[in-house]
């Protein structure tokens, strides 16, 4: 059997790729690639938001948002994540100045805010379980836990990543590879804060209305 796409003898093999990509800046394409990953992550969250949007008012005679949510706690949570966003920004600015000690300091502060956020969220979930509102209670609660805990898991993995990078920076300094990694984590971290805006707006604030 002959393959139909084989070039006939004597002609140059067809080129299906762009040749001027050679010697291309690897860091530039890493940033674009990571951005594309974030966009696909955004689609995951969008499907979970859509699910919540569809099921969010199906209580199966169980508790509703108004019965369960404590907006003061959510405001504190939001503040934690917003603070962590700006402190990560400060870490990046110190990284640009090649100040390793201060970069590490701001990264540590960011991590602590992240831990506070996750701790508060776990505390909220424990409280909800005690209130008789586990995920299997109603469609509303299933979609609520799926959406919010997916975000919380992202933040948790972000913290793990942050600690890993702090160790890397401690060991090898602010070399080009570590800077690139810190920039990826920066995008990831700010992206999670952006998703949280959607969560507190749609799930918590609009949830308790009506």
């Amino acid at each position, binding site marked *: 059997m002959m393959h139909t796409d084989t070039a006939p003898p004597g002609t140059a093999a067809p080129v299906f790729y762009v040749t*001027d990509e050679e*010697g*291309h*800046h690897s*860091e*530039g394409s890493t*940033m*674009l690639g990571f*951005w*594309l990953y974030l*966009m696909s992550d*955004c*689609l995951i969250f*969008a*499907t979970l*938001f*859509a*699910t919540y*949007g*569809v099921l969010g008012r199906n209580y199966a005679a169980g508790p509703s948002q108004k019965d369960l949510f404590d*907006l*003061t706690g959510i*405001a504190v949570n*939001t*503040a934690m994540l*917003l603070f962590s*966003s*700006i402190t990560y*920004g*400060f870490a*990046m*600015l110190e*990284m*640009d100045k*090649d100040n390793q000690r201060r970069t590490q300091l701001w990264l540590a502060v960011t991590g602590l805010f992240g831990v506070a956020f996750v701790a508060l969220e776990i505390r909220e979930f424990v409280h909800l379980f005690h209130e008789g509102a586990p995920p299997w209670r109603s469609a509303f609660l299933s979609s609520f836990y799926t959406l919010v805990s997916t975000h919380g898991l992202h933040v948790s993995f972000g913290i793990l990543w942050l600690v890993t990078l702090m160790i890397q920076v401690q060991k090898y300094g602010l070399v*080009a590879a570590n*800077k*690139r990694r810190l*920039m990826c984590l*920066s*995008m990831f971290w*700010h*992206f999670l*804060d*952006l998703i949280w*805006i*959607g969560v*507190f*707006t*749609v799930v918590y*604030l*609009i949830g*308790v*209305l*009506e």
Partner: protein
Amino acid sequence: MSADATHAHGSHEHDHVHTEGGHGSVKAYVTGFVLSVILTVIPFWLVMGNTLDNSLVTTLVVLVLGGVQMVVHLVYFLHMNTKSEGGWTFMAMIFTVTLVAIMLSGSVWVMYHMNRNMMPAAHHELLQKMR
């Protein structure tokens, strides 16, 4: 991407990593932070204080403020602009936003009408049987 764009990019490549647009400045981060605080406090105040006394209007206002805050985060924290990476990050974002908009509005719209048109009948039958 054009050849000279690649060149300009390459010339910056020394021992240290450089990104187009940079990482902003203290001023940009603080501006973003202050705007975010304002755009967070207003919706919480509207909902917790029941300020507008109309849940539909409150819902719309809160949604708009959330959207604005997302844009603030994109610009001041994620340094999104139309030029970085030859415009490809922006293109990818527009594509994603379009998909997300279709997915969200489509799901809610279709399922709302399904509920409206099919659920009452089912309920009614069920209630009849139970009697």
